[in-house]
């Protein structure tokens, strides 16, 4: 059996069961919609929606996340082959990490990670 076949099986079974559970109350529950009920909840005042600009810090966090997450994945591959690579692997990965840490220090200095 292909090792990834169970992933597909689990995903399809879970999808069917999830869809059934998700629409359970659409079939079983009452349906009495009204204009007020279908407003979004904003503590009773007239809702003004959420189509606004967000703080740029969230975007910065997301971009930095991609950077460091890819670094983490690279480190996994190195960690798995660590024993066969020996000192060569250590030197190479330390160079890689040093470059990334330089970037990290730059990000810190530019105050991209300050939340106040």
């Amino acid at each position, binding site marked *: *059996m292909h090792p990834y076949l169970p992933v597909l099986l*689990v995903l399809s079974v*879970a999808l069917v069961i999830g*869809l059934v559970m998700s629409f359970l109350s659409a079939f079983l529950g009452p349906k009495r919609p009204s204009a007020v009920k*279908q*407003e979004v909840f904003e503590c009773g005042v007239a809702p003004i929606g959420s189509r606004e600009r967000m703080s740029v810090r969230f975007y910065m*966090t997301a971009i930095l*996340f991609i950077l460091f997450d890819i670094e983490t994945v690279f480190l996994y591959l190195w*960690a798995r082959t660590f024993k066969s690579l020996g000192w060569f692997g250590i030197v190479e990965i330390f160079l890689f990490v040093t470059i990334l840490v330089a970037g990290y220090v730059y990000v810190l200095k530019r105050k991209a990670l300050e939340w106040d």
Partner: protein
Amino acid sequence: MMQLPVLDETAVQIIATIVKFLVVLVGVLHIPPVMIWVERRVPALMQRRRGPNRVGFFKWRLWGLLQTLADAVKLIFKEESVPGSAYKGFFHLAPLIGLLPTLLFVSAIPFGPAIEIGGWKIPLSVIELDIGLLFILAVTGVGVYGVTLAGWASNGKFSLLGSLRASAQMISYEIPLGLSLIPLVLIYGSLNLQQLILAQSSVWKWGIFLSPISFLIFLICMFAETNRAPFDLSEGESELVAGFHTEYGSAKFALFFLGEYVAMFALSCLCSVLFFGGWQIPFVAHEQLVSLTGSVNIAALCGVMALLLKAAFFMWLYVWVRWTLPRFRYDQLMKIGWKFLLPLGLANVCVTALVLAALA
């Protein structure tokens, strides 16, 4: 007598996979009711209250154990209200996207050693991959989409703010979570979860003793990844009503709840697998257990119980911490993630690699 069709290896494994997944699913569906009950009764004990104790079975009250069952039935029979200004497709899809990755996650956990049924060897994990650890990390990453889409598609202020906070927090803590597990891969030299367990053959080879810093980082990230107290800013009731699921009700709300508790359970299992020897019973080798009980299957069942007990401790820890620690501020949360855990995780990886290379 009817002749049974002859099954080949592939057919057996496919049937076994589906059966195993259904067993896991049924088990996992019982976690939210029990955990919610624990989360009401335990704080009640801590605060000298009674907590829910009425709903029972005729004259037996069962310490209110059936309260959450009643709540679940109520949720299913509620009217489903969709905000008029919501993006309908994503609004309906978001709870599913939140739930599916957690089910995949829990399927990748090896609950015990392989069992034997009718001569077939069946591993006790639904999905057994050589890159199990990477698979789990990838799958937890997908979970962020459910939270983000739920808040954005609801088109409400509180939902959007809650989902922004939650997704920023989850991606921030995913990096230290990933970094904290690399020393274990370095030490045990495998990404396969079953082999990681087998490598921790005695208590002193457990991950917590060989890499305690990793355990510390992982434990903190466990709480942050599931948006639990003290990192539950995304649902700060006093500021954001309920966070990203403010607009959800009925069965979809129940799905979000299910997803959250399954994620907690899966992370508790992963913690036991990586740091506490998984299904191995302390001081009793698996071979000893097999010869003692005289059956591979009974020994495997003992292993499953051991793993579940270890996981139950961490589930209890979730509740304990929630009612002990106050909530962090958002800038503190980000500071811990980016300025403390990330450098600590990197340093931990580098030091572990150097020590291992020096010892080799």
